[in-house]
Every structure is written in C-alpha cells, then in structure tokens.
C-alpha cells in the first residue's frame, strides 16, 4: 500500500521517434515485407529462366518441329543465346528483364514485351473487376449473415448459408463459365459469350470469376463477425449504448474484415490465376488465352514471360495485402515480431 508509481510507468512512445526511422514499427514491418518480396521475385525470375532449360530435349527443335532444317534450328538457337554458357544466359536474361527486353517470340518473331503489353490490360481489367464484384457482394452478405446468425440466433440460416457457400465455392470458375454461356448465351441469347468488344461482354466473365471467391469471402466475413461480436470491446461498445448499426459497422466490421482481407488477398491472387481458365472459356483476348496458345505451339519465350508476369502479379498483390493489413490493424505489426 505504500508503493507509489508515477503515471508514466510505461515507456512513452515519444522515445521511439528519437531512435530513428527504422525503430518505427510500421517502417520496420514494411522493410521486412519488401525484403521478402525481393527474395520471392528472385526465386520467381530464376524459376522462369530455368523453365526453358528444364524442358527435355531441344526447345527450339520442339518449337519448330522435326521437319525444320538443322541450319534454321541452329540459327534460332544462336539468336536466342542458347549456345552461350548457362551463367552468361542467366545474366543476359536478368539484364533483359531490367531493360524491358523479354526476348522474341519463336513463332511470330514479335518482341515478347510487345505481346505482353498488348494482352495485359484485358486480363488486368477482368481480374480487378471480378475482385471488386466479389468484395462488393461478399462483405455486405457476410455481415448480414453474421448479424443474423450471431450467438443465440439463426441456427437454420447458418446451416443453409454455410452449406450453400461451400457448394458454390467448390464449383470451379470455368465450369461456372460454361453454365453461364449455356444459360445466357445459348438458351436466352441475352449476352455475348466471347471477346471484350462491348460492355455487356464483360458481364459473364466477371461473374464466373467472382462467384466462387465471393462465396468464400462471405463465409469468412460471417465467421469472423460472429467471433468479433463476442469480443470484449463489442461489449464495451454496447455499454456505451451505441446504436446497433454503429456497433456492427464501426466496431465489429473493421476487426472482422482484417482477417477476411488476409484470405481475400489469397483470393485475389487465385483470381489472377483464374483468369487463365475463364479467358479460355470466353475467348478473352488477354494473357491467359495467349499463354495456353503459346504452350500448345511451344513458343517458350512467350510462355516464360507470361508466367513471370502472372507470378509478379501474385507476389505484388500479396505484399500489398500485407501492407494494407498492417494499416488497418496496427496490432499485426507487433504480431509479426
């Protein structure tokens, strides 16, 4: 009872600013996360370089076919630098990447960078639109379900919702695409089923890409919201007698969405990859249809570059999600160490 403590028993955070920029948790976290991105990028670049060398046999002979004259194959090998020592090829590849030179297509002889630049926007638009659609549908749906099935409520609703979302999430995007083509294209004839010339043509590809992730995301948001609604700070918010809307949207939602976002990030990168299939269903003139064509025609420089672009996209998305998460939930900085 004789102990007296000054009110500033805890170390004041003002000290942190004095130590230097790196002492700030946010900067430290960002630096570490960017470090991981660089390492992953290096692994990715090396893997895409190695791809062409892992192919059994001569990739140029494979691409040009067994009937191509030996001189042509040799000339093309020379042009691609395949006769140089492997380490020189690797350094040339890295140099090319830095200067934006992704090589030349074996079949069309166009610069690969040009092909990628021409195809990338369509894929990007498709992925971003689908992600937005999934989020716009899933968060309100998940919140509504969470509120309806919060502790002590809606046992049947929960079962129905959980079952439906599992089933919907299991259907792969290209099968949803085929079904949508059948219903809206073949039977009803309402919507175009190929290309991206009109605004209406966006509808079916975006929907087939968004449905599965939306179901998963809504399910996660619901589970998280139900958990968060049991948290002490929600009880505090209730003790403040805030209106229900404020409690759900201001106090519960941000904490539920942080966890949902972690998985949402994975969904976004899965969506980037999902474009490959959906593009092939809808003849979408993007990277996905190009990469499949190039694999079939054994145009390896193009495949190499597009796989690299997809990989970079995934890595960048994952990093951005982590950084966004750190902004939304200051605690994740501490949790990461």
């Amino acid at each position, binding site marked *: *009872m004789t*102990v007296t*403590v000054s*009110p*500033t*028993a*805890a170390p004041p*955070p003002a000290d942190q600013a004095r130590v230097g920029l790196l002492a700030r948790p946010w900067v430290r976290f960002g630096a570490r996360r960017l470090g991981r991105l660089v*390492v*992953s990028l290096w*692994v990715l670049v090396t*893997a895409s370089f190695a*791809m062409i060398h*892992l*192919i*059994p046999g001569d990739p140029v002979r494979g691409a040009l076919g067994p009937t191509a004259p030996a001189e042509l194959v040799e000339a093309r090998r020379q042009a691609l630098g395949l006769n140089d020592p492997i380490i020189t090829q690797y350094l040339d590849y890295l140099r090319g990447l830095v200067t934006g030179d992704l090589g030349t297509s074996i079949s069309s002889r166009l610069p690969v960078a040009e092909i990628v630049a021409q195809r990338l926007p369509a894929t990007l638009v498709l992925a971003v639109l689908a992600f937005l659609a999934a989020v716009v549908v899933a968060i309100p749906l998940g919140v509504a379900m969470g509120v309806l099935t919060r*502790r*002590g*409520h809606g046992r049947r609703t929960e079962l129905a919702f*959980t079952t439906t979302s*599992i*089933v919907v999430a*299991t259907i*792969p995007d*290209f*099968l949803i695409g*085929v*079904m949508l083509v*059948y219903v809206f*294209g*073949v039977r009803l004839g309402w919507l175009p089923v190929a290309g991206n010339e009109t605004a209406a043509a966006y509808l079916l590809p975006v929907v087939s890409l968004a449905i599965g992730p939306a179901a998963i995301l809504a*399910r996660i948001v619901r*589970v998280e919201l139900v958990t968060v609604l049991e948290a*002490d*700070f929600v*009880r*505090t918010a*209730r*003790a403040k*007698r*805030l*209106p229900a809307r*404020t409690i759900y949207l*201001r*106090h519960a939602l*941000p*904490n539920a969405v*942080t966890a949902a976002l972690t998985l949402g990030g994975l969904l976004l990168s*899965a969506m*980037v*990859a999902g474009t*490959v*299939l959906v593009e092939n*269903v809808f003849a979408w003139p993007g990277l996905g249809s190009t990469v*499949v064509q190039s*694999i*079939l025609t054994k145009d390896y420089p193009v495949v190499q570059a597009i*796989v690299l672009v997809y990989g970079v996209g*995934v890595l960048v998305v994952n990093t951005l999600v982590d950084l966004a998460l750190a902004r939304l939930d*200051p605690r994740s900085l501490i949790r990461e160490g």
Partner: protein
Amino acid sequence: MHGRWRRVLRTPLGLTATVLVVAVLALAVLGPVLWGTGAEAVDTDDILAQPSAEHWAGTDNLGRDILLRVLVAARLSIMLALLAVVISMVVGLLLGSLPFLVGSRFGRLVSAAVNIAVAFPGVLLALFFAVVFGVGATGAVLAIGLAGAPGFARLTQTLVAGVAARDFVAAARIAGVGRVRILFRHVLPNIAEPLVVNATIGAGSALLSFSALSFLGLGVQPPSYDWGRLLYDGIGAIYVNAAAALAPGLAVLLAGLAFNLFGESVAKGLGVDVGTGPHTVHRTARIRPVDRSDRETGGAELEAAPSDLVLDVRDLEVTLPGASGPVRPVRGVTFSVRRGEAVGIVGESGSGKSLTALAITRLVGDEGRVDAARLELLGHDLRAPDTAVRRRMLGTSLAMVFQDPMTSFNPAHRIGGQLAEVAIHHQGMSRRAGLRRAVDRLSAVRIPDAPTRARQYPHQFSGGMRQRAMIGMGLMGTPALIVADEPTTALDVTVQQQVLDLLAAIRAADEVALVLISHDVAVVTEVCDRVMVMYAGRVVEDLPATDLATAALHPYTRALVAAVPDMTTDLAEPLATIPGRPVAPADVPPGCAYADRCPLATARCRDEDPPLVADPRVRPDHRVACWHAGEPLPAGQAGRNTDELVESP
C-alpha cells in the same frame, strides 16, 4: 472412432457426400467394363446430333454417344486425379518433414522455399510444370501433383511441429531414438488423420484441376479422353449440341463436389481443422418466466426516498442455456444503491457477481435471459425494451468499467475516437467537439499529455493507463452510477491503487454512486461503504464495510474475511482457505447452497433456503441469509488442514 464416423453419416451433407463418392468410385470401376465398346462406336450418319431417345446427350463429331463417353471417362478422370494426389502427398510429406529430420539450418531453408511456393496459386504452378513436363496426360499428372505439393508440405510441417513439441516426442528424443524412427513411430501416426482428410479434399481439387488442364487442351490428348477433354470438345459445339458441354461439366462438378464435401464432412465429424475457421454453434434456450411469488424479498424496509435512489433491483434472476438444460447463475438478488454510495459485491468466481453487474447494466447477451420484479436506474424501468431516449439516458448516466482493459478497447480505433463516440452519439456533439471533450476527460483521469495520447491506439497504452482511459470514457457523460467489474484484477499490483484512488476521487467529487465487483475483500473494504457477499447466485450477507472484519454474521463471510492475510497473520501457518468447492449453477441444492461447506450446517439448512433479512439483533442496514447467523464457529474452522482442501476453479 466408430461413433465419430457414424456421426459423419448422420448429417444430411455427410450422407449425400458419402453416397456420391461411393457412386463415383463404382462408376470408375464399372464404367469402361459396361460401356467401353458403346462409347467407341462411330456412326458417321448421326454426327453432332441433339439429345434423343437413342442418344440421351446427343453425339459428337464422329457420331459417338456422349453420355456413354462421359460414363466411361470416369475411370481415367478419377485415376489421374488420385495419382496426382498421391504425388502431392508423397512430395509434400517429404518436404514437410524435412525440417524435422535435418534440423534447424537446412530445415529453415526448406520451409522458406515451401512458404514462397505456397504463395503461388495452384493453376499457375500447374501451368509452369505442364510446360516443363510437356503437354499430355503424364505431364499433367506430374504438374498437378507437384503443384499441390507445397500445400501438403506446409500442412505436414505445421502438424509435425505441433506433435514434435509434445512430451512423448521429447521423451523419445532424450531416450536416444533416432529422428527418422521418431518420425515414423511417433509423429506420423499422430498426424495421419488430418492428412488423410486433407488428401480427400485434395482429390476433389485435383479432379477439378485436371479437368481444367484437359479443358485447356494441355491434359489428356486424343484418342484418350477424360471429362476435361470431353468438355474441351463439347464447348466448341455448344451452340449445336449444348449437352456435349453440359454432360461432362456436370460429371466433373458432381465428382469434385463429392470428394470435397466428403472430406469436409469427415473433417467436421472427426474434429479435424481444415482451416475454414471456427463454427461454434450456440443454441438459445427458451425459458418459461419464473413464478416469483414464493421468493423472499428482504430489505424492503431499507427503501430510501425515491429521489435518492440511483439503482433499485428486486429479485434479479439471470438464466443461461447450459449443456444439460438452462441454468440460473443469479437467483433472486435484491439491493439498491443511493446517490454517491459505494457498494461492493464480493464472492468467489462463479458466485454470479459479474453476471449481476451485466444484468443491471443490460449487457447480458442474447442467449441469456434476465428477469426481475424491479430493475430501475434513476427511476427508469430497465426491463422495458430499448428506445433511443433510453439509450441516451443509459449512455450518459451509467458508466461501465470492465476487468480487462486490453481487450475492452477496440484495437482498430484510436483512444480519443472511442471516447468521443459517446459525446457524438448521445450529446449531439460534432466530431471535433467530441474529441476535445475526450482529451479533457483523459486529463481528468490523470493521463499525461492527453492530446497526444488521444491520437494513439489502445496497444500503445500501458495497462493502468488503459483502465484510467476506460474510466474516462465513463466520464464523457455525467454518470450517476459507475459499475466496475473487477477493475483492478488484470492490472499490476503497483497500478491497482491508482485506479482505486481515481474511482474514489470521482465518487467524492461528483456524488457518483459506485458498484464495485471484486473477489478481493481488501479492495472492497477500502473503497466501499457497503459490502454485499454473494454465494451461488444469491446475496448471503449485506453489511456496512466497517462491520465486515468485526461483525459479519454469515459463516461464509466470516470465512472469506479470515482468508485475507493481514499484518498479524502468522506466516509460519498455512494461509486460511475455505474447504470444499463452490456449488455449480447447474446443481444448486434446495436448501442453503453453502450448507455443504459450512461448519454450522444442520438438517434445516439442507432443506430450507434461508431468506435475506435484516437481523433484529443488529443494525437495520445489515441483512443476512443464514439460519445460524452469528453463532460461534468451531475453533480453527477456517484454517483446517490444507490437504483436505480443494482449490476452487
């Protein structure tokens, strides 16, 4: 084990999935035997035909029956998928247990590589490997198998790490058993179940991925055909014969769903986590209103002038759903609190004191049910449903301080904003004015540099400071009553006193009434005017704090007081404790709930619950519920031999 499997079959989803899996497997075995020749029969007179009685799903460009081809394709589709899963599992197990086998340095490298690989979506990995291994069925099996491996590797790694930390593995290690042997004898058998469940789900995913690759033209090549290849052929002709695309699509879907759902239901039935998050199910109990006519209502004579009463509670009951029927952890609590008065509620954990606090502040969750003959705050009936006006009244005149200030603030918002909310919602202040008021209140609870602190997040505050900020939040309005539930329990001993001093100062300055809930008799005696002792959901004694040490009448209160060591306690002796354990709310006896632990208990105590009444022999503001109130205790009762004592939870 048996019962758990049966539980899988009992859910409608589990049963459907099991039937589907069995059907799909049977089709894979029998399909080619039954329809193998029919599916190859070429009929050039009848190509690309629409569905008809003869060809239920029409014919393809060689006039072959599509339905038969779909049925026959089951074997190849499923075999290839299973093969791919086996590859995923073997490679994944190998990579996943490497860190355990080879130790920290190389192991860390392997797990870092796995972590990088897991970040890439399966389709992308599969494309990469499909290029390396070449287009065709073999390439696709290897591609999908290897693409699935990182996921299995990560799962194995996590599971192995979990088991490796357990005692029996440590014991085996100390006994000199080799790592490989430990892995096979002790670790793998313990993680087999979740691995198998995930492999089942993996089979579904592999099936879908495989059909995806074949659909892209990268998988099975003609003249062989799997479902994906049939879909590839069918989609080109979808305008001519839609069934050619729909039939294989449906087959893929059903089979994929069957494996996935089967895996998920088995996981649920066996309690294996597949990383889909918790699904706790709570059930609301519906409870009949209780008949309160037979309940004793002591303390009626204590009623003060209505204007002086801040809180008035009669016959408060809280009922919660329990494992075997509803339980009633609060059973008829009656008390009132006057302006500026500090009432302490003490009791062991489980005595119902915290639930009482939640009930009088209307914070019992939806699953609980609160009944009371009267429940009034400043003359407002709290039993009536919430209205905006009532919310404002409660929001400004009732403050609540919770036990754990760490979890009681919202981690996602700044402290200042969380305080300001009260003013913004209930006092119509602008955001800016609300924040100004928040800074002012933070200074009022002695938080240094309040303007800076208000802009910080809860995790940047120390525990004591958070609790003061919580009290400051209560002071945003003009509270007439502060209910503090164990406000110092989660704090360091050194800062507990600050928080208690602060509560005392606020009470003195503004005539705020205080209900302080604590298991700590010393804390309550220090701060409060009156002390209520709760036991098994009832108030057993209600007396002035000054009388607690000297004039307590209930044997339980006396035992509680005796259990608190003071300056004269002989530390050579074991500290006094109360023998026996508190009564669980689910099995409260008909008589006095304390009878089993009470040295004075008689037959009457076990049959009749004593009412809480003022004892005529002492002051009128001293109520006690005991048939033997004040009778002398047998010597040394409170400090009986320690080995017959049972710790209360």
